[in-house]
């Protein structure tokens, strides 16, 4: 009887795949009627930033000719993002390198922190990604207008189209432009959310099958193997999504640098 109730309790806690995304307030703050409490999500954002700053700071503090392990990792990260920025935007795109590098490192650290059991994944909440994506779009629009003036709006009126077709093409171009922040944030959010739910469900199967009794217990190792495979996949996705976010940031910033392409 006792064992059964414990079993059902474990089942409920361990197999609720959504529970990991619940926000808990750590410290309550109100500013002007807005709830700006410090939550577990804020805590992990802060942790990601602090970790990134400390690790990269320590790694680059010595700047030795023969790099230590940490320094070469930092150098590889720099080279990776710098190569991406140069490929997508050319040499004059390097002025956006700090933005792209910060976004990449922040998302990468947030995703990787989310891979620790019991850690919160900040990027699994769409509002966080939306804020990052809107920051990118604000830079694109702001810099595009500042640099190119009115010519920036040429991206909505592509050249070489018969004037009648502008009635069709311009709305399509506007939608295409407006869909960018959404596609940036939804992709990251959906991948992290779906991945972590999948992980939890697979891991839940292990407990459910093991506690179901009978021959079903023989299936538990299969679910466990599946969980291990999903963990590996999730590590890949965590890196990949940071990479995709950074590379699309470059693609969009390129529009602000060189409109009319």
């Amino acid at each position: 009887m006792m064992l059964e109730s414990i079993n059902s309790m474990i089942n409920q806690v361990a197999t609720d795949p959504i529970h990991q995304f619940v926000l808990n307030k750590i410290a309550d703050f109100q500013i002007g009627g807005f709830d700006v409490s410090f939550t577990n999500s804020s805590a992990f954002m802060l942790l990601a930033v602090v970790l990134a700053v400390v690790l990269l700071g320590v790694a680059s503090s010595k700047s030795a000719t023969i790099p230590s392990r940490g320094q070469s990792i930092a150098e590889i990260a720099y080279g990776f993002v710098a190569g991406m920025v140069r490929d997508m935007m050319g040499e004059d795109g390097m002025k956006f390198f700090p933005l792209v590098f910060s976004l990449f490192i922040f998302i990468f650290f947030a995703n990787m922190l989310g891979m620790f059991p019991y850690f919160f994944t900040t990027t699994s909440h769409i509002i966080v990604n939306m804020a990052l994506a809107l920051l990118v779009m604000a830079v694109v629009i702001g810099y595009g207008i500042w640099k190119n003036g009115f010519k920036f709006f040429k991206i909505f009126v592509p050249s070489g189209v018969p004037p009648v077709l502008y009635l069709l093409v311009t709305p399509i171009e506007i939608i295409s432009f407006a869909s960018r922040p959404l596609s940036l944030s939804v992709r990251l959010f959906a991948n992290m959310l779906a991945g972590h739910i999948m992980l939890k469900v697979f891991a839940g199967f292990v407990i459910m099958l093991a506690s179901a009794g009978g021959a079903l217990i023989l299936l538990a190792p299969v679910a466990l193997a599946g969980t291990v495979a999903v963990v590996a996949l999730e590590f890949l996705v965590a890196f990949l999504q940071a990479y995709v976010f950074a590379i699309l940031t470059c693609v969009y910033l390129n529009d602000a640098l060189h409109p009319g392409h």
Partner: protein
Amino acid sequence: MSNDDLKKQIDEARAAYAKTYERPLNQEGQAKGMALGFRMATEFAVGPLVGAAIGWGLDLVFHTKPWMLIIWMMFGFAAGVMNVVRAATASQNAAGSEPVEGVEEE
């Protein structure tokens, strides 16, 4: 040990080396492919969504329910297709291959 035996051993070692050496390259290719796949899926899905949102908003403003929603959703569909075509063209050009014939270069 005869000459043939040694040859066999060398060949085996080479094959094993090639096998382990090949793997990271393949994985990198797979990762890039996955990134592209994720990108395509959302690029398309987001078009009609944003189109519908704009149409819905215009309907609210101009009281033209449901025409703007319908029209802008179609625009959104077209925008989604265009997003995918652009992403595909860009990735193909990046891969160094020739752009597909009939697809306008961006």
